């Protein structure tokens, strides 16, 4: 099974430290900055503030982003890890994958689509003071529940 970032919504406090620290991992051009807008994990709250959802790619087995992408070879699954990856050089920024992902786990950053491609030692997991995030192989129950949460508490 593919290891993914697993989210325990009961422990989340909506602090968004995951977003803040994740953003550090995607700095470019020698710039070192906290930039939440470039993070690959974003947290949403529901209307009456009773539920929080850290939207992060669950590396779907049937990845709608892959089939929605009009560019051959841009979104592919890594055969070794099972992680769905976006080739930044090929991405044309059309946003079709963002729309296709019903779990709100693909984001447009500076004209390119980006998503969680599962770091080896993820900063989001390290940053979460509530241990609401972990890097593990999910079971089916988790996948069906988190899908429901992402639809119920959208970005």
């Amino acid at each position: 099974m593919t290891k993914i970032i697993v989210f325990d919504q009961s422990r989340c406090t909506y602090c968004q430290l995951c977003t803040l620290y994740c953003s550090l991992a995607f700095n470019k051009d020698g710039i070192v900055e906290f930039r939440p807008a470039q993070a690959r994990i974003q947290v949403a709250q529901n209307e009456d503030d009773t539920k929080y959802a850290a939207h992060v790619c669950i590396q779907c087995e049937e990845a709608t982003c892959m089939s929605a992408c009009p560019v051959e070879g841009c979104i592919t699954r890594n055969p070794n890890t099972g992680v769905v990856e976006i080739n930044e050089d090929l991405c044309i920024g059309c946003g079709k994958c963002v729309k296709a992902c019903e779990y709100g786990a693909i984001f447009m950053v500076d004209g390119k689509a980006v998503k969680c491609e599962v770091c080896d030692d993820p900063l989001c997991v390290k940053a979460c003071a509530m241990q609401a995030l972990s890097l593990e192989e999910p079971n089916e129950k988790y996948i069906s529940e988190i899908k429901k949460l992402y639809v119920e508490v959208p970005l």
Partner: protein
Amino acid sequence: MNGWMGTILRVDLSSGVIKREALDPDLAFNYVGGRGLATKILYDELDIECDPLSPENMLIFANGPATLALGLSSGRSMVVTKSPLTGTICSSNAGGYFPAAFKTAGYDLIIFTGRSDHPVYLHINDDKAVLRDASDLWGLEAEETDLTILKKVNPKQRRETKTACIGPAGENLVRFAGIVHDGHRLAARSGVGAVMGSKNLKAVAIRGTGGVRVANAEELLRATLIADHIKTTDLGIAFEEFGTPLFVDVLNAVNAMPTKNFQYGFFEDGDLINGAEMYDRTLVRSKACYGCPLNCGRNTRLADDAKYQGRGDGPEYETLYSLGSNLLNGDIEAVTKMNYICNQMGMDAIDTGVTLGTIMELQEIGHLSEAEIGFPITWGDAEASIRLLKMIANAEGFGIEAGKGGRYLAEKYNAPEVFMGSKGQGFAAYHPRAMVGQGLLFATSPEGGNHTTGNTIQQEMNGIPTPMDPLTAEGKPQLVIKNQNETAFIESMGVCIFPYMFLENGLEAFTELYNAIIGAELTEEDTFRMGERIFNLERMFNYRLGFTRKDDTLPKRLTETPHPEGVAEGNVVPLEQMLDEYYQLRGWTIDGIPTQEKLETLEIV
């Protein structure tokens, strides 16, 4: 620049002109940011004698260099202005999610001057800033204002847009109106919301997509270890479970929980309004400000079958005192409801409670009649309290007078001694007769009875780093100076004072983190000196308005009337004795005026 964004936005509400200006790096380095930097700008630019509610006053929204640049309780911004409640400089800070948007939009400060001729709100989308008509928002409560503004925003940008607004209390110039972040969390104190209201500025809505540069990200990751350390201490564990309401038990146990307008330091119904009671009856889940591992926020709801209904944030410990023990109100649902109303009306829950306490005592001693208020309001009467606090926020009937604050009422009704505050601002939740250092701190705070310009609870009550007798003057001037200087630095950084308070040497930890953010090699002595500079500048601001020792006062109740009970029985605050030593250690004259020599040492000109 690392830490700072390098840009100041100036908004003149009279002319509608908006200008961008580069931040002066030397000024930023010397005055840090937030409270410090904004005070320096006011010190240099403000017509200091101005009426705080006139167009001449300046209202500064300020980030610190650490705001969002650090994963340790640094999602904070401040509002700095001349206070209509105290007539002094003031800095009111809050967390939530607004500061993160403010910072990532690319600004260190937003400086408002003048007054708009109609209600407006400032809408910022990264480098675009526009004043928009707010006629349809005027009169709305905080959450409704937030939601109404967000509905106008491009749906794709809605989640990232955050607001700071005033409620009816700010519009009606209630002297203790605050500014509400995200519809629920307040920069509550000193009447900053009334200044905003006087400018016809209903809200600031910001979306930012930029980043905050830092010098050494690897070094900053150590913040996660500090957070882990704090969260595994006894206090940290309790804090996570109960939030600030845990202090009800802590303070009540040592007779320092202000009760019945500070007549007592023990509330016998304390266990009906404490953290455990909230946990059982109102808590939905705990909630953190942006980028804070401590999650002390309380997301609460009153049950559908409860006497009162609603949902929102809190109450915090301060409110459990001000609207609870202070009024002999032991009904957690009533305190929670009153807190919601204060938040939605955009009104400081502390000064609201202090004002109600003043009114209840004035009525009890026969100085204020039922007829003047319109109804009886006796200790513990939640119904009458709710009725009155709505009248204050909406400026109706006696509420207009009450909205001028406790000191005004106590003087008007010939009993100035019943107002429990300093410099016109009501006290925070620590009874100085049972922790006299806190009394000195309140008396010398640049903005009166405030709990974020320093807080002695860790040392006086929890014995961290070393135990100290809370009842005597010994060592207190030193403790207070240390606290005031260090928190002036920490706050100006843009960091909440909680993690600093919880660490044995908070300044050391935050100096290291600060170095990693801005790329400097400052020592603790350096950052202590920066805090001292900021604190002295605030003192000078006030001195230019005539504030001296004669204003560093506490009510006679604290300095002359013996504490009635418990471990502090018989104690009073030896204020004058502490002040003599405090001024001497500060390098001020016996009248509490910074000497020329001190100002030169601190490079304040």
